[in-house]
C-alpha cells in the first residue's frame, strides 16, 4: 500500500511508447519530429521545463545538420553542445529525467534506446532580488539566498573559497525530487555530525519538499519541542560563519532558507552584525537582546503574579498608579493580560498576512488606536499596555524568526502558570523550560552548550562578543577536528609573545 504511492509510474509501463502516451496526457508535453522526414527522429519534452531558446539555438540546428545522414544517437551526442547527456533504455531514468527538464531524443530505428539531453531552464520563475529582507542588517553584506539551489551553492562558494567545502547532494521527495545539499568542511567539521545528518536525511520520505524548514522539522532531534533545533537563515554570512565553526549546513532546492546545525540556544540570539561592529558595541547589543528575551518571557507573567498574589513587593510609588489604572477595569489581571497579548498576536499575524503597505498601516492603526481605545474603554490598564507592547517589541529583537516565535509562544504558559500559582508558577515554568532545554539536543550535541554541560573554556563568544584577538579558536563544544580558526596578530609576531 505504502509502496504503491511512492512507486514511479514507469514501473507500471510495459514499454517506452506506453510511457510517452502517458506523458502526452499533459498538454504541456511536446512530442514531435523536427525533420520533415517524419519517422526518422523524434524529440519530446515538457515545454514548461526546458529553455526554449537553448532548444532552438543549439538542438534544432543539429537535427537540421544531420538531416538525411541517418545519424545514430551517438553521432547526435557528438554534435550536441551539452555536457549533461545520457543514453539510456531504462524507463525509470527516462521518467525521472523528463520530469527534470531533459529532452528525449529517439530514433525510429531503435525505439527503446533514447538520448537524454539537459536543457532545463534554471532561471525562469526565480526572483532576481536576493536582499536579506527578513534578516536585515545595517552593516554587513545584504546578499541573501534565493530559491535556486545552484545559485545558493555559488553564493556560499564565493564567500568560502576553499576546496575543503564539500556539498553532498541527496534527493528527497517522491513527487518533487528536491535536491537537498549538505555542506561541511572536510577536515574541520566533525564527521559524526555529517554522518548523523546524512543518515537522518536519507531515512525519511516526503512527497514534496516545499521548503527547507520541512526537512529541518523532520530531522530535528525532538520534533515536539517548541524550540528550533536548527538555525535557519537566509544570510550567506551566517551560514558561512556556522560552517567555518564546524557546523554542517543543509540547503534545499526551492528554498531561500538554509539551516545549520548542531546549534546551541545561544546561536539564536547572535546577529552577524555583532561581528561587524566594535566588540564593545556588539556585546552591548547582544546583552540588550538577551535581556529583551528575559523581559519578553516574564514581564506580563510578573504583572499577573504581582497583581494577583504578591502586591506587597510592588514599590510604594507604583502602587497608586497601578491601582488607579486598573480602577475601572472589570476583569482579573489574567483576563486583562490574555486579552491584550492575544490582541497583539492578532495584530502581528494580520500584519504578516497583509501586503507590506497595508501591513504597516495596520500596525499603526492597531498599535495606537486599538491600544488607546482599549484603555479608554476600561478593558485594560495603560500600564499593562506598556508592558505588553514592550514585551512584544522585545520578542522581535531575537534575530532568528523561529526563535522569536518560540519566545512569544512560551509567554502564554508562563502567564497561565503565574495566574495559577503566582511567583511560584513562574518559577515552575522556568524550571520546566530549563529542564527541557537541558535535555534537548541538536544533531546529538547538547542544546545548552557551553553552559550545560558547563564548559567555561568556551564561554567566550556567548553572552558577550569578544574581540577577534580572543576568538581564534573554534567552539569546542561541537568538537571540530581542527581547533584553530586563524592566527591572531599577537601570536604571529614573536615580539608580542612576552
Amino acid at each position, binding site marked *: 500500500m505504502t509502496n504503491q504511492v511512492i512507486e514511479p509510474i514507469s514501473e507500471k509501463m510495459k514499454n517506452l511508447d506506453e510511457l510517452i502516451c502517458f506523458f502526452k496526457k499533459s498538454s504541456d508535453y511536446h512530442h514531435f519530429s523536427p525533420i520533415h522526414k517524419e519517422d526518422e527522429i523524434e524529440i519530446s519534452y515538457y515545454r514548461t521545463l526546458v529553455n526554449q531558446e537553448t532548444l532552438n539555438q543549439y538542438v534544432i540546428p543539429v537535427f537540421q545538420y544531420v538531416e538525411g545522414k541517418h545519424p545514430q544517437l551517438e553521432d547526435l551526442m557528438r554534435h550536441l553542445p551539452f555536457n549533461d547527456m545520457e543514453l539510456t533504455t531504462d524507463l525509470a531514468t527516462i521518467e525521472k529525467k523528463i520530469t527534470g527538464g531533459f529532452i528525449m531524443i529517439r530514433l525510429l530505428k531503435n525505439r527503446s534506446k533514447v538520448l537524454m539531453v539537459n536543457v532545463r531552464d534554471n532561471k525562469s520563475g526565480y526572483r532576481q532580488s536576493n536582499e536579506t529582507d527578513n534578516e536585515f542588517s545595517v552593516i554587513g553584506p545584504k546578499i541573501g539566498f534565493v530559491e535556486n539551489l545552484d545559485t545558493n551553492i555559488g553564493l556560499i562558494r564565493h564567500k568560502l573559497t576553499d576546496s575543503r567545502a564539500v556539498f553532498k547532494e541527496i534527493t528527497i521527495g517522491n513527487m518533487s525530487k528536491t535536491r537537498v545539499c549538505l555542506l561541511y568542511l572536510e577536515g574541520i567539521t566533525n564527521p559524526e555530525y555529517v554522518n548523523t545528518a546524512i543518515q537522518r536525511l536519507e531515512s525519511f520520505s516526503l512527497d514534496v519538499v516545499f521548503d527547507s524548514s520541512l526537512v529541518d522539522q523532520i530531522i530535528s532531534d525532538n520534533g515536539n519541542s517548541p524550540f528550533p533545533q536548527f538555525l535557519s537563515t537566509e544570510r550567506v554570512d551566517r551560514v558561512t560563519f556556522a560552517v567555518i565553526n564546524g557546523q554542517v549546513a543543509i540547503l534545499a532546492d526551492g528554498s531561500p532558507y538554509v539551516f545549520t546545525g548542531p546549534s546551541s540556544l545561544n546561536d539564536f540570539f547572535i546577529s552577524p552584525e555583532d561581528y561587524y561592529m566594535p566588540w564593545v558595541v556588539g556585546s552591548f547589543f547582544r546583552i540588550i537582546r538577551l535581556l529583551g528575551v528575559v523581559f519578553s518571557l516574564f514581564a506580563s507573567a510578573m504583572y499577573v503574579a504581582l497583581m*494577583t*498574589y504578591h*502586591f506587597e513587593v510592588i514599590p510604594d510609588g507604583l*502602587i497608586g*498608579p497601578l491601582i488607579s489604572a486598573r*480602577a475601572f477595569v472589570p476583569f482579573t*489581571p489574567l483576563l486583562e493580560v490574555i486579552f491584550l497579548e492575544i490582541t497583539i498576536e492578532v495584530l502581528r499575524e494580520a500584519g504578516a498576512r497583509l501586503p507590506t503597505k497595508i501591513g504597516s498601516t495596520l500596525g499603526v492603526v492597531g498599535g495606537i488606536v486599538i491600544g488607546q481605545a482599549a484603555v479608554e474603554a476600561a478593558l485594560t490598564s495603560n500600564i499593562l499596555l506598556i508592558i505588553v507592547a514592550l514585551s512584544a517589541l522585545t520578542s522581535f529583537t531575537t534575530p532568528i524568526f523561529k526563535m522569536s516565535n518560540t519566545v512569544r509562544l512560551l509567554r502564554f504558559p508562563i502567564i497561565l502558570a503565574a495566574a*495559577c500559582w503566582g511567583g*511560584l508558577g513562574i518559577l515552575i515554568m522556568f524550571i520546566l523550560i530549563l529542564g527541557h532545554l537541558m535535555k534537548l539536543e541538536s544533531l546529538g550535541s547538547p542544546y545548552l552548550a557551553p553552559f550545560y554541560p558547563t564548559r567555561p573554556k568556551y564561554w567566550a563568544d556567548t553572552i558577550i562578543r569578544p574581540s577577534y584577538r580572543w576568538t581564534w579558536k573554534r567552539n569546542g563544544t561541537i568538537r571540530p577536528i581542527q581547533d584553530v580558526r586563524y592566527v591572531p596578530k599577537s601570536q604571529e609576531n614573536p615580539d608580542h609573545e612576552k
Partner: protein
Amino acid sequence: MKNSCRRGALLLLCFLLLTSCVHKTIIDEVQIISVLGFDKTDNGYHGISMFADYKKSELGDNFLLEADGKRARIILSKMSDASSRPISIAKLKVMIVGERFAREGINQFSETICIDPKVSSNVYMVISEAPMIDIFTMIQARDPEHLENLLTQTMENGNFPTGNMHYYLKNYFSKGQDSSLPIIDVGPQQRVSFSGYGIFKRDQLKMKINYVESFLFKLMLGDHIYGVYPADIMKGGAKKEIVFHCMSGGLKQKYYAKDHVRYVVRVKGFFQDYPENMFTSDNQMLIQELEHNLEQQLDKLVRSFQKAKLDPIGFGNFVRQHQRDWNADTFYEQVYPNMKVDIEVKVDMQETDQSGKNSEGI
C-alpha cells in the same frame, strides 16, 4: 513517548492541585493598610488603621478604620468587616503604639504583625505620646506615605537612630541589649513631630529620652552618625550655644575588664550659627569645649541608663563578646549598674560655616 506524556499529565495535575493552596488577593480588591495603631483602653484595646484608596486618583485618599478588641487579629477582622473590601496588612509601613499600651507591653500585638510572612521587617514602630486618633487625623490629611517618609527622612538626616521592627525584634530577642523606639507627638502646625526616644525593657516602655539625648544615643550606637547638636560653650563666664553639624563618624569600643569598657566616639562635622564674638579662629577652643561637653553629656546619659538598669546601647552584647561565661541575669543585676564606661570624644573639623567668618578680617 506515551509514557512521558502520561508522566507530564500527572505532573501537571499535581501542580493543578496546588492552585487551591494559594489565596488570591487581587491588588485592587483589598484595602492596603499602610499605618496601623494600637492603644490600650480601659476594657481592652483600640485599633486604628489607615488605608489609601487609589481608585479616584493616583495620589490616593486616606481613610481610617477603627475597632475595639482584645487581640490583634480580632481588631483587624473587625476593621475588615467595616470595610467594603477585605483589609490586608501586607504593605504595612508604620505601626504606632500608644504610650499606655507600650508601658504595659506590646509583645502580643507586635508578634501578630511580625510573624506574618507578608509583612516586611522594615515596618517602622513608633510610640505615640498623643492620643492615637489625633495622630491619625493629622496623617490622614496628608499623602499616604507621609508618615513613612517622615520617619525615613528623620532617621537618615536627623537626630534619630535607625529603628524599625527588625531592630526592635533583634534587641527584643537578644539578651545583651534592650530595644528602643522613637516617640512621636503632635507638633506645631498640626504635624507629627519627634519628641524623643523610648527605651524598653523586653517589650515594656521604661524610660524616655529627649530630642538632644537621642543624638547622643545615636552616637553611642555608632551606626549612621549624622545630626545636629546644640552645644553649650562657656566663654568669658557666659554660657553660649553653638550648633555642631555632625556629618559622619565612627565608634570604637575597647574592652578592659567585664566591668570596664571604653567607647571612643569620633565625629566629623562643622560648626554652624556661631554666637556673637565667636569666629572660626576660635575653632580650636570650640572643639575642646565640644569634646568636653559631649563627653560629659554621654557620660550622664550612660549613667542614667545604668541607674535604670536599661541597656539600649548594647554593653551586654559587647562584654559578652569577650567573656565566655557571660550570663544576662548576673550581668545586669550585679555588674552593669556599677560598670565603668570611659567615654572619649574626638571631633574632626570638616568644613567651615560662613556664619563664623571674622568680619574684622575683611
